[in-house]
């Protein structure tokens, strides 16, 4: 199993989630994060003083997926989260050793 972490633009969340759902992904977890990267934050000006805001709001989604679903999940995220403009984000894939569903105690692919 794989643990997929994707950093995307916040307003793309619903679209990505819908796409993943239609692939059969049953769950995911989203977190508001602040991203630092090539995309620069806006300079905000308050009473003449400039504040350089280097972090940009992003959403991180974490999805545990079965190995065979991985490719399609990556493609779906890529397709839906893409605007073509800087700051679209990244997808990271880690190996996932074990999963437990708390409610039932199921393990492994069953638990996804």
């Amino acid at each position, binding site marked *: 199993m794989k643990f997929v972490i994707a950093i995307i633009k916040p307003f793309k969340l619903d679209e990505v989630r819908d796409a993943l759902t239609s692939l059969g992904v049953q769950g995911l977890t989203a977190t508001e994060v602040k991203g630092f990267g090539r995309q620069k934050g806006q300079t*905000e*000006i*308050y*009473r*003449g*003083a400039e*504040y350089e*805001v280097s972090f940009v709001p992003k959403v991180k989604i974490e999805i545990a997926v079965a190995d065979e679903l991985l490719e399609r999940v990556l493609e779906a995220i890529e397709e839906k989260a893409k605007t073509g403009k800087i700051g679209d984000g990244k997808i990271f894939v880690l190996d996932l050793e074990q999963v437990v569903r708390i409610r039932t105690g199921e393990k492994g692919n069953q638990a996804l």
Partner: protein
Amino acid sequence: MHGSRSFHRAVGLAATLILTATPAAAADEATLNGGNAAWLLTATALVLFMTMPGLALFYGGLVRVKNVLSVLMQCLAIACVASLLWVIVGYSLAFGDGGGAQGWIGGLDKAFLAGITADSLTGDVPETVFVMFQMTFAIITPALIVGAYVERIRFQHVLLFSALWLLLVYVPVAHWVWGGGFLMSWGVFDFAGGLVVHATAGVSALVMAKMLGARRGFPRELTPPHNPGLTMIGAGMLWVGWYGFNAGSALAANGSAGMAMLVTHTSAVVAALTWMAIEWLKFGKPSLVGAVTGLVAGLATVTPASGFIGPVGGLVFGVAGGAVCYFAVGLVKARLKIDDSLDVFAVHGVGGVLGVVLTAFFAVPALGGLKDVAIGEQLLLQVLGAAIVVAWSAGASIVLIVITRSVAGLRVEPDAETEGLDLTAHGERSYNP
């Protein structure tokens, strides 16, 4: 230099009413005017509302999230201490009978409000109401200074400094200008507190900011105001409350109060628009924080003039207040590099003095004003009055801070500053989800 002519000059409604309250003069004529009392009771509530919670929110929204509660607490504590001192000696020293020293300071005859009963009158309003109305001014003035020292000052120092400052700066100046002191005798115009409130607070704020030093990381590492919406709520409350501040200073529900309200409002909106326009030209976008700062600048600027000028004066004060304070903000922060954190000097100090000076022009009937004076002579008076108040405020503040910092310590430890005053000084966090 200011001979008997200016000595006897009429000095505005407020002054007249206060004078008539002296035992001899008032005995025969004064009877309660219910309409005036009703408006002054209301105005008192409005001015308290300016500080609690208006100013507290205005300032609270501008600081970082780890210091919000400390700002609210500073405003609240100052309100409490100032009120208590006002009852004990403040009112008496400002408005009591100073006898031979009357030019400089009132007496102690009304300490603990001795002799003031429900029947006492000041002019044609109950003296109790006058005491309260003036108290709300004594509350907000030291609270204005909070903006200079947020995010780094020791709470003990806030209390000690504010208490002494009230007695050493606010009370005497209030006496000089409104309580029968020498500036009042000279005929300096300050309707609702351009000198008494804004100049004293603004100048002392600059002194404090300088002596206290900048916040760690100033200016590069500071983060933007944590909640501009809070600042705007506070600004709305200040605006509404300022009706009580300026129109209440007429001490009557009449056309003078109405005109004061009108010019106050006009100056406020024009100053806000002016600030917006400047930002729009310079940065391509007008900001909310900018607009409300302009609003407050317009209100501070028109304060000393509000009972003396007409609508056209209001328009001019607005443009002047908005533009001059805008540039003053930049000057203090970028040139002088003083971390007067929430721009108390640039907005209140500069606005207040500017207003006092402009009053000389726009108070005359030719420019829509209500006072029959010669511009040149009045200008001299206004400038001189401002100079004296500025000098006194600065000097007294320096002395005070030198003393209080040895007694109560000025700044919190660097770690506490990093951690934030909410937790370290008050053990609380502004938001616990």
